[in-house]
């Protein structure tokens, strides 16, 4: 079933500043008070299944929960082959890799060094079995991920798509400090999930583009959230009641942009 287009239905955001974009400060740099990394705590999720899961896996699962809350949907709404999962991260695998390299992890930790295991845990938790794409990179890769999600929906290859991003920095803080001239801080740990559903207007994707002002706003307010940044931008647009949003992402010299229709937020009781 080919459709006309796709739109943002909901987005959930967690950052080191707190839950949702309402927790973002006006000026992340000032709020960081010189801290290079603003961390996120390990979520406490029930279940024997999570006993080996890494902090970043749990953050991914928690971000999907946050998105469902924003959408006003239960977990059954995303179960099955009708839901695609597009995951993106620049560095979310770093902690597990460093732990494995340091010889501090047991045998069963090894699979968690693969970036694909983080979305794998989210897929298991929510029973998501549709198209599955995992991209590595910063904000530009997230724009690519949003485009993939929108085209999967518009082409009828799924009924809805999740775009999930997770970034953690704490365990690799010394490595990031070496590269601070490339990525001036603060580095803000974050996890975000967007739900893309069918819409009337096609998403407009530009693989090379100019940065949009919303990207600067996100950086000023949230700090460096790397792959999560375009999803934070979408959350800001949705909370502002905009009917559409242009978000851009810049990474390693490339800026990509996408325009998406944005569904109105359901009224809160």
């Amino acid at each position: 079933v080919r459709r006309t287009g796709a739109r943002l239905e909901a987005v959930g955001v967690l950052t080191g500043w707190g839950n949702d974009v309402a927790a973002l400060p006006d000026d992340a740099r000032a709020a960081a008070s010189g801290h290079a990394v603003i961390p996120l705590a390990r979520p406490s999720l029930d279940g024997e299944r999570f006993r080996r899961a890494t902090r970043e896996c749990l953050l991914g699962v928690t971000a999907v929960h946050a998105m469902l809350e924003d959408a006003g949907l239960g977990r059954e709404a995303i179960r099955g082959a009708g839901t695609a999962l597009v995951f993106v991260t620049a560095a979310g695998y770093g902690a597990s890799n460093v732990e494995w390299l340091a010889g501090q992890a047991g045998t069963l930790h090894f699979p968690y060094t693969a970036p694909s295991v983080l979305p794998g845990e989210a897929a298991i938790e929510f029973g998501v079995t549709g198209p599955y794409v995992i991209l590595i990179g910063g904000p530009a890769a997230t724009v690519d991920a949003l485009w993939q999600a929108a085209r999967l929906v518009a082409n009828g290859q799924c009924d809805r798509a999740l775009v999930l991003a997770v970034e953690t920095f704490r365990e690799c803080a010394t490595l990031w400090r070496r590269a601070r001239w490339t990525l001036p801080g603060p580095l803000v740990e974050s996890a975000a999930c967007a739900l893309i559903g069918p819409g009337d207007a096609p998403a407009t994707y530009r693989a090379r583009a100019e940065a949009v002002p919303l990207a600067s706003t996100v950086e000023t307010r949230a700090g460096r959230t790397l792959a999560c940044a375009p999803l934070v931008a979408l959350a800001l647009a949705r909370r502002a009641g905009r009917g559409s949003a242009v978000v851009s992402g810049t990474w390693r010299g490339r800026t990509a942009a996408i325009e998406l229709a944005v569904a109105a937020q359901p009224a809160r009781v």
Partner: protein
Amino acid sequence: VATPVGLDLDAFWSGLLAGADGLSAIERFSTADLRVGRGGEIKKLPAVAVPIRSRAAGLLVAAAADLTSRARLEANPERIGLVVGTALGGVEELDHALADDPGARRALAGLYDSPAHALATWLGARGPVVTVSSACASGATALGLGADLLREDAVDLVVAGGYDALCRFVMRGFDALRSLARDRVRPFDRRRTGLLLGEGAGLVLLARERDARGPRLGRLLGHGSASDASHVAAPDAEGRGLEAAIRAALDAGDAGVGDIDFVSAHGTGTVLNDRIETAVLKRVLGARASTVPVNSIKGALGHTMGAAATLEAIMCLMAARDGWIPPTVGFEEADLACDLDYVPGAPRATRPRCMLSTSLGFGGCNAALVLEGVA
């Protein structure tokens, strides 16, 4: 391509047809503390790759040098995209950054998308640079995303493929999981005990049909992917995700199961993978299953992880071009649970037109490609 059986397309292809064994004792790093110290190691990189510090980037550049010796990248550099798949990215550089190099460059090189950006610089490609990391299915999804970028008119040419370097990080992991074969890799064989890892890179040049210039190897008709949502490290016991990916690829390619003349299987040589994959192929191909040749080239190369699916796709297209299907090296004794035609012993003289390539990976990743050769 750059592989343990050949450092260019011709050597790779003739090696596969000859049933070459690219597996050997690993020399580049110590395996003294591991149960298994063998793999598909490339003993000497081509000269073009030698000055490159990151082995992963060096493998990509070696494959790119082979590619660009056969096809020119005739497009505005801003309209040339690069999409590569990897399971390990620059993780060996991360090891160096932690152990012996305090510099910033090495720290950044440890990011999984660093080798792709190094290749983009080498190629002079200034379009989108995309890194896919769907574990060992990455090389298939990368080809699919490359085709999507062309369909979207986001680029005019795409260099797409996959790579991974053999390193202690991954050897130690698979060794600890007891996934490695102690002797040889025997895909679909009754005596199979596991996989051996390999390294390599494979790249193809993708263009829209109307823009294609020069000799063509074939067409990517469709690609599909699906999540198992069952286990982070083991494939779904029923292979439901793999089946969904295959059916999605067939749908996308507007192809029916009756069109499939040949299957390049993931065929790792593990007890579980080969049994599940066989069952899925039997469900998908139905009554034709016993008549469609199925091979695995992992007995020759080892499991080259992010490179595997691209190398297998290239093998499919070469089979269609030359009318020969390479044998499944290591397959000798049939297994009751693996009862398809696995092309034993010698290459098969047949010219497939439409081909299916399947891949699986950690995290419940499944991907499939439907390819068409040009005779």
